[in-house]
């Protein structure tokens, strides 16, 4: 069941989303929600999709079962998604005339009048909340609990008015649906009630804490700011130093400074902010500083679409920074991976003294769904800092390329790091032989990093004929799209949660496939090109989306259907 409500910025859609998803989950439904919104504080048109289901749901769909317009312009952008089966619920004056011809399923509720009676237009969304709670058999006491929980900051008088407005909506829901209109018999399960309901921001933040993060410096930029806010809220309990820097240049130099002094630094940013950080990425490469960079992608170039989503900064993360030095790029596809890969990023950064990217995107960070649990058993708390002795050499040459890392104030040695090429002691040098040794030393770390690379994960039959390859946040849309298509017999999915360096098994998986299809949220198939440059393997087809909206299962299903039914010799190659 897909419910979409649409209104202006400032109409309280986010509050509605928060209460609805919590309420449905606590009632035993699996839930998913995602809001698409404009880069403005008031006005425009934003919408939120809430899916509720008897089975797990993880992705945004084109399909809409119930559409709730909350403003007269609320339907304008949705005509291509409203089908003859879509039930339109709500205020008559907000429903486009074309749907009022008597042939389209419409559930009229005088929301404006009810809101006025409840105290004013601001109560419209609370009335909708009550209607939806009633339609899906949510216990009224539970609904009231959730309203109290989320709206407690409003003060008693407004809280009571909201409770009354919700009660009005709840009453109105009775008998609203005529037989045959939008089936609401969705099975509920008790297990779901106690599951974790969260968004990508929280799992990324939690993963950082589990990875031992002790220092966060950032400059606000959508969609990465949520991670900064997460740490700010948790700073007191967790002892993490959090600072909003004057710019991204300062933020990343602070994070590197913190690692030098024994902290475990994280920066969180998006493409434009990361662009300002690039010189310091190279600094981390030269002084062999650990560093974790959370890069939440949004569509560029330049300011692009500030509140939308894309996977187009892979090349940027991979090739940014002058000079040659190793790095790691992780790209979580699920909430569980958001947690485990952030934690893993701190481990890899610390162990190998390299920058590690966690590449997410706006869709990954802001979509919300329930998962059974977060596994804290594997919390990483291994430290690689050593106590120095008097003849300590920060850049001692080793077989692995990794020199034991000391910090000032812990031991007898001096810890000298230099952005100039340096000797094993960390002094400036222009010796060609030392230079050659140092470049080799730094690059040798890639051998260890490749050995520890995360293998891509295969979903579907082991004897696949067609292989659909995706990375990062695209996984769930590809899974649901392939389910829709019904080609589970001969088509499998290969998902990469580490995109660089690649695990050696990548070639094996790809070579076995008769037909290889890449799916990415960008225009130039950046990951396909990376695979080609690393393995020589070329894709047969590509499914690319770069409108700013997330990949949806329907996109995958329709494109795959076209591709797999066509004669296989006619395809272009990526």
């Amino acid at each position, binding site marked *: 069941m897909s419910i979409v409500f649409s209104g202006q910025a400032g109409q309280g859609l986010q509050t509605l989303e928060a209460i609805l998803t919590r309420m449905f989950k606590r009632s035993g439904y699996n839930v998913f929600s995602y809001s698409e919104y404009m880069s403005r504080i008031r006005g425009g048109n934003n919408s939120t999709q809430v899916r509720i289901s008897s089975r797990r749901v993880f992705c945004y769909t084109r399909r809409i079962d119930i559409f709730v317009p909350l403003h007269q312009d609320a339907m304008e952008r949705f005509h291509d998604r409203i089908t003859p089966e879509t039930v339109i619920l709500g205020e008559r004056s907000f429903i486009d005339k074309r749907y009022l011809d008597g042939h389209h399923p419409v559930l009229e509720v005088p929301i404006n009048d009810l809101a006025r009676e409840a105290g004013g237009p601001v109560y419209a969304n609370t009335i909708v909340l009550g209607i939806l709670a009633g339609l899906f058999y949510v216990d009224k006491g539970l609904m009231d609990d959730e309203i109290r929980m989320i709206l407690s900051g409003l003060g008693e008088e407004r809280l009571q008015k909201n409770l009354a407005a919700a009660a009005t909506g709840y009453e109105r829901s009775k008998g609203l649906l005529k037989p045959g209109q939008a089936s609401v018999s969705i099975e509920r399960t008790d297990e779901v009630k106690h599951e974790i309901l*969260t968004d990508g921001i929280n799992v990324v933040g939690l993963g950082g804490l589990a990875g031992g993060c002790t220092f966060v410096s950032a400059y606000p930029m959508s969609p990465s700011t949520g991670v900064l806010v997460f740490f700010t809220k948790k700073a*007191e309990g967790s002892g993490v130093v959090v600072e909003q820097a004057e710019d991204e240049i300062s933020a990343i130099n602070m994070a590197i400074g913190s690692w030098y002094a024994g902290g475990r630094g994280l920066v969180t940013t998006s493409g434009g902010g990361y662009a300002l950080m690039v010189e310091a990425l190279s600094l981390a490469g030269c002084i062999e500083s650990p560093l974790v960079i959370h890069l939440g992608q949004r569509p560029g170039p330049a300011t692009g679409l500030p509140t939308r989503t894309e996977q187009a900064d892979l090349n940027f993360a991979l090739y940014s920074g002058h000079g040659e030095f190793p790095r790691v790029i992780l790209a979580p596809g699920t909430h569980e991976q958001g947690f485990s890969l952030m934690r893993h990023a701190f481990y890899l950064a610390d162990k190998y003294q390299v920058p590690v990217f966690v590449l997410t995107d706006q869709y990954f960070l802001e979509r919300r769904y329930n998962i059974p*649990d977060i596994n804290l058993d594997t919390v990483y708390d291994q430290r690689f800092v050593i106590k120095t002795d008097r003849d300590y050499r920060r850049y001692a040459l080793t077989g692995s390329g990794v020199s034991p890392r000391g910090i000032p104030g812990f031991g007898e040695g001096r810890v000298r790091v*230099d952005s100039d090429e340096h000797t094993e002691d960390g002094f400036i040098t222009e010796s060609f032989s030392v230079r050659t040794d140092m470049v080799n030393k730094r690059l040798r770390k890639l051998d260890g990093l490749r050995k520890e690379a995360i293998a891509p994960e295969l979903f579907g039959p082991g004897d696949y004929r067609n292989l659909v390859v995706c990375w990062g946040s695209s996984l769930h849309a590809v899974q649901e799209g392939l389910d829709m298509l019904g080609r589970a017999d001969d088509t499998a999915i290969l998902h990469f949660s580490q995109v660089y360096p690649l695990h050696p098994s990548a070639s094996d998986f790809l070579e076995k496939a008769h037909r290889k299809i890449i799916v990415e949220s960008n225009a130039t198939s950046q990951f396909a090109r990376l695979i080609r440059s690393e393995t020589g393997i070329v894709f047969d087809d590509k499914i690319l989306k770069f409108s700013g909206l997330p990949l949806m299962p329907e996109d995958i299903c329709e494109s795959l259907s076209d591709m797999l039914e066509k004669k296989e010799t006619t395809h272009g190659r990526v």
Partner: protein
Amino acid sequence: MGVYDFEHAIDIAWCPGCGNFRILKSVKDALEELELDPRIVVFVSGIGQAAKTPQYMDVHYFNGLHGRTLPAATAIKASNRGLTVIAESGDGDMYGEGGNHFMHAIRRNPDITNIVHNNMVYALTKGQASPTTRQGFVTPVQTQGVTEEPFNPIAVAIALDASFVARAFAGDARQTTDIIKKAVTHKGYALVDIFQPCVTYNKVNTYAWFKENTYYLDDTYDPSDREAAFRKATEPGRFPLGVIYLNRNKSVFEETLIAYRHDDRPLYQRTVDMGVLKDLVDSMRT
């Protein structure tokens, strides 16, 4: 030989007669006289001739990017409050490339000392104008002479209510050492702008020129009067030397951090708190 000297001879990259030699000596003397344990003294520098200074002392150092000295220094102090952190670089680094950080470091007020070698010229890149170059100064790039007003770091720092603002002259080793000692022992951000003759690329602002164009503030001067300090910083004619402005009533950045409210330990001693994590996960269940 002091604890900040190397046992072996070192190769110093500066020109003979460079003002940096004198600053290096004053810095080392200040640390020796303060009897600071070199195990807890960290120098942070950027790029330029001045930024090489930490290479010539037996200290910890973080020689980072051009202009980015202060963010790194601020974070080092915030990560381990037991360290004595000295950010040392030139006028181009601190006032040009790093101008934004200079402004915001003063606002944050971390307990660090900021030593700026001010030779009014870019020396490492061979003689172009710096933000503090005097008007009319001819360079290979500013061939008609510099037209911009020189940046006045003292006035800007006072305008931003920096907690300690001083100016020294490299030619006077004793006074410079004393000013650096005051800066290092001051709790909060301390700026020491040091006039430094460049014998190769600045034939105008020489040892003799600085001698003629500076004077020391006497004991009657009250550095706590901000308006008077601003007048001193902007008065025409000779430049005052000494502690020009002092505000001891400012909160210190790393002491305001919530992360230290219940835990004094430096960050490297902290471990993941499983209880906090578990509570956070559980809070997402309801």
